[in-house]
């Protein structure tokens, strides 16, 4: 089963390696990983997508809590959180196909951020699922290069104040 974890960490060297080593040890692949700054300069947020059992996930969450530089671990549950990702894709676009591609892009609110004689680059922001749909639609046109940032997410503003399931630690 797939899970999205959001981990608040102190912005210090080695933190990412300590976190990922918990997955590596168990042979789990991290499907997507995004790390970046937050509203606090000393805190970064790691968002990761993992395919593992609920029991393994709970174990890893608890192990993560024990890491000295980890401040908070929460799971971004479907429905409780907003998830977004950014995609850049360079598509083959000879002049006669440009119009078709660009109208396709409009449907996904994709922006053309670079245009060459026979290719263009789209920038798309959306849910990971939307990006996958877009990718499939442009694929017949010829994808030259593609890169995605990995998903990031926040608990919904409309949900209870601390949205996202916090690990229930009995203390």
């Amino acid at each position, binding site marked *: 089963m797939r899970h999205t974890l959001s981990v608040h960490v102190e912005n210090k060297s080695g933190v990412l390696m300590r976190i990922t080593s918990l997955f590596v040890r168990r042979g789990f692949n991290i499907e997507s990983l995004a790390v970046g700054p937050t509203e606090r300069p000393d805190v970064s947020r790691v968002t990761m997508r993992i395919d593992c059992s609920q029991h393994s996930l709970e174990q890893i969450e608890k*192990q993560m809590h024990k890491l000295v530089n980890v401040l908070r671990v929460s799971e971004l549950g479907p429905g409780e959180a907003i998830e977004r990702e950014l995609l850049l894709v360079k598509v083959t676009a000879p002049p006669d196909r440009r119009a078709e591609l660009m109208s396709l892009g409009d449907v996904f609110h994709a922006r053309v951020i670079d245009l060459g004689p026979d290719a263009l680059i789209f920038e798309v922001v959306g849910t990971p699922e939307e990006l996958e749909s877009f990718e499939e639609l442009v694929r017949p046109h010829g994808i030259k290069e593609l890169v995605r940032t990995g998903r990031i997410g926040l608990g919904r503003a409309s949900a209870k104040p601390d949205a996202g399931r916090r690990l229930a630690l*009995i203390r």
Partner: protein
Amino acid sequence: MKMLGADAILRSLEAEGVDIVFGIPGGAILPTYDAFARGTTVRHVLARHEQGAGHMAQGYARASGRVGVALATSGPGATNLVTPIADAWMDSTPLVCLTGQVRSSLIGTDAFQECDITGITIPIVKHSWLVQDVDEIAAVMKAAFHIARTGRCGPVLVDIPRDVQEAELDFSYPDEVDLPGWRPPRRGHPRQIREAARWVAEAERPVLYVGGGTINADACGELKDLAESGRLPVITTLMGKGAFPETHELFAGWPGMHGPKWSNWAMNKADLLVACGARFDDRVTGKLAGFAPGASVVHLDIDAAEIGKLRNADVPVVGPLKQVLRDLGSELRRLHEGDTARRYDGWVDQIFEWRDEFPLRYSTDGELVKPQAVMESLQAATADRDNVIWTTGVGQHQMWAMQYLLCDEPRRFVTSGGLGTMGYGVPAAVGAKAAQPDATVVCVDGDGCFQMTGSELATSVMEDLPIIVAIINNGYLGMVHQWQNLFYDDRLSQVHLTHAVPDYAKLAEAYGALGIMVDERSQVDDAIDQALNAGRTTVIDFRVDPREQCYPMIPAGAAALELIEFEEGAETEGVRAL
């Protein structure tokens, strides 16, 4: 106060109350050793191998309850500490390892004796630091000691580049740590503790399953109160050995692969296990699905990650065991209100009937010295001494030591449980002696184990830390031999070491220790007496029967009740170990 980074390291150790460190110098840690030469109250014990230094620090920590400190240089010095770090991680031993690192400008360039020791040790430390600025030293040292000994104890590593040791700083040791992400549980939840007490009160056949966490938590007094007030039988794991007096009327032995049959029966026929700082290790449970099938579980631990890791807990309590066990005891007394406290007597009596029915047994056939008989002699010869600390290596001798050597107090049995590190015994004994100079420290070792770290005899002799090493010399890697015998149709493969090479008594003499060789039954007691009275490091080479196997045994992967028992021969000794 202005000083060099190297001096700041020593001032930090002094501020932490460290009286002794174990280490070996080398290039990248030279400035710190120069600081030793300038003067400090910290005693330095010079080991012969960094692995030895690490295990000494572990032995010191386990015997004293304080944080052990090991010191090594970069590269190979640091990698030689990896085994002790992994061992301390598995057995939750508080350990601070300080390593020198190559100069900051050389890091990442494959410089001489460079290795990424913080990277290498990530999966086996609670935390580690590569100190990049001399001004960080005091805060890092403060945090290192704090993390090693708070929450679930364990190892930390501080890697300090040579130029950082040589740089100048204005030193002051902080009073507080600044660790926003380090919040070990401070208190077990009262509701959970009340719930746990209710489950215990309602159980018919409860067992306290006690692990090393109880000793680390300094909660053995609270455990005893709990057991006595509820009249609950107590089983201690290898790491928990000594947490409860082994001559106590409620003591019910040791569980697992080489635990007595009656202890395993008690554990597996219980209807409630109260796990106290124990982690359902596979050497205790055997096949997990078949372990204590009828038992509910109350799990008390400082580490939330242990709850439900292997066995579901019906009532989890996360918190420091000293408080949790104390509150559980008083809650249980309240529930029992004095008069129902004897309700488990039938169960306790049943366990002790099993004990009388299934004692530990071994063959007394033939002329050769039996390893179990050596253990009995060691136990008898030391029974009237107040302060005896046993250390062991790993293997058959370790299991016999568990079965036959009785500990009435915690921190008297120092062994490598989780990692199973052969060679742990001799250096751990040196460290234990450093922690408890008045104790009689006896390392029960195997011949295979001794050959891994026996060079630390030199440390024992030269540092005036006298120990007794009782080598149970069967000429084999005994436990591997046993597995090949039982599970590989006795096809022995690469396990024969020979009794005589090296000649351990001569080797001991070469190290300046006393060496005694014993190959007849009549010599055993005299040799032990001689060693106990020698007042200096002594090695006894007990040449024992190589075909003697350690029973009972639960084969790996089998359920605990499927244990293999000793088959009685013509002449057998039935030993009621307790």
